[in-house]
């Protein structure tokens, strides 16, 4: 369960601009929430304008800055909600529900980690890198995207002190052509990682989980589900577990041990 109670927060858009093809970066002024939300948790954003779309938009964040009182969210413009969010201007006010879900755990005694991000899954991965660097845990990273135009986070990971940052794109327009799992397999080969943190398309995370299992490295995955609330009321964001049970993505997750999950 979330340590800090999930609440409703009035927020104001500080900035909102494109960082890639169909990728936007919004910074929200949300002092109370920025002070208590932790890497791996998410928020549920009210995006006004179209009353026919009643639900909030659940989004992960890349940076919560308690000093600036801001939360940075890099999001993909994929539907009505994110399209309206992309049209919001500095000064526009709305509300967000948060913190939702649980933070990335830092396994006892972990000293070297690898991060694997696919697509907009890079957002919570960058938040994770910030947590690791604050905790003095060394890390490498693999960042995958469809094309160079849809790639974000490499500079951020470098700035956070990543050892190696491997880039893969489906079309080879940046880094190597191929999948994040190809790069991860090589990084795992030297056997120095205590833990892998990953977020991206479910099929990618399943591949990452398999590689980690084969290498005997613990793997933590951040799952995504459609949901109505984000705080355990609706029961719609269920994730199938390997033992045949279901867990709630918002209440029990979004971070799960890869071994728990039925891939």
């Amino acid at each position, binding site marked *: 369960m979330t340590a800090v*109670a*999930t*609440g*409703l927060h009035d927020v104001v858009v500080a900035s909102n601009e494109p960082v890639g093809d169909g990728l936007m970066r919004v910074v929200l002024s949300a002092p109370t929430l920025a002070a208590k939300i932790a890497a791996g948790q998410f928020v549920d954003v*009210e995006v006004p304008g179209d*009353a*026919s*779309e*009643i*639900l*909030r938009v659940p989004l992960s964040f890349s940076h919560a800055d308690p000093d600036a009182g801001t939360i940075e969210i890099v999001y993909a413009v994929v539907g009505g909600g994110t399209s309206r969010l992309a049209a919001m201007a500095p000064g526009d006010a709305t509300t967000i*529900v948060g913190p939702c879900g649980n933070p990335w755990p830092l396994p006892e005694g972990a000293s070297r980690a690898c991060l694997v991000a696919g697509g907009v899954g890079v957002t919570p991965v960058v938040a994770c890198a910030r947590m690791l660097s604050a905790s003095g845990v060394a890390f490498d990273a693999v960042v995958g995207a469809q094309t160079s135009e849809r790639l974000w986070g490499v500079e951020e990971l470098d700035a956070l002190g990543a050892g190696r940052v491997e880039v893969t794109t489906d079309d080879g327009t940046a880094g190597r052509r191929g999948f994040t799992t190809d790069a991860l397999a090589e990084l795992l080969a030297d056997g120095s990682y205590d833990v892998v943190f990953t977020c991206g398309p479910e099929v990618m995370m399943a591949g990452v989980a398999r590689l980690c299992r084969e290498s005997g490295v613990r793997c933590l995955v951040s799952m995504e*589900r*459609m*949901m*109505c*609330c984000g*705080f*355990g*009321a*609706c*029961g*719609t*964001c*269920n*994730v*199938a577990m390997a033992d*045949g*049970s*279901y867990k709630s993505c918002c209440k029990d997750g979004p971070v799960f041990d890869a071994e728990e999950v039925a891939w």
Partner: protein
Amino acid sequence: MGEKNVSMAVDLGGVRMKNPVNTASGTFGFGKQFEGFFDVARLGAITTKGCSAVPWAGNPAPRMCEVPSGMMNTVGLANPGVAGMVEQFGDYLAGLEDRDCRVIVQAAGHSVEEYVAAVEKIEELCPWASGVEMNISCPNIARGGALVGGTPESAAEVVRAVRPRVHRPLLVKMAPVRVPEIARACEAEGADALSLINTINGMSIDVRTRRSRLSKPTGGVSGPAIHAIAVRMVWEAANAVKIPVNGMGGVASWQDAAEMILAGATSVTVGTANFYDPTCASRVVDGLAAWAAEQGVADINELIGAVEC
């Protein structure tokens, strides 16, 4: 604000609420999740997620999709079972009763036997509960998935079986079908109040994959899209029976709640709005009180069924 001038207390078939605002089963968890948003004890009552005698896992994902001005779900009555609820939330719910907020525990089942087992567990483990709501909008496994409460006869059968085992107010959560007939059948079998409407069954298909957008062919539509339909059904039920009606369906504002009361609802229940506007129910409490004062009544009960037709 004229709240102080107006008496807001209502009696929902023996469940004495300090104000008419309730929350819908399956949209408010077990209440505790909302304490971070507002003082839940401000509400007249809450209704728990439907619980069965034993835990149910529910349906696979995806369990929800959006529709215009609403949503559809196929959670499939996933619940921790009555004992699981009591273990996790019993102290909180008993405390809520002490805070003068009534707790209505919902019983779920797929057959007469399962309903009986559920209410017996509730009677055994939930002494603090002010009322029991029986959700008869579930598929009847013995009858090939037809709704338990889909006909007056099948509704009467299950209410008849459960009534003698419930020693506190019994609410029946109706399916949104054949409302006047089924309302009368439930009343005849001794229901103390009727809760309606449950979600309206809908279907949404991805036209490229040709598959349902849910893990099941159909799901329940809720939200503002069905509000006008719900108000009509509440009006029909209130005109068909003498027992009180707990009105719900797309209530997202005090105005929506006031419509329900004018249509004949004794209490008004906030459902889907809890998901996207988690302080909605608390604002409805204030909005209804201000509206009643504006309407110049001394008691909210004067406005129940007061629509002029």
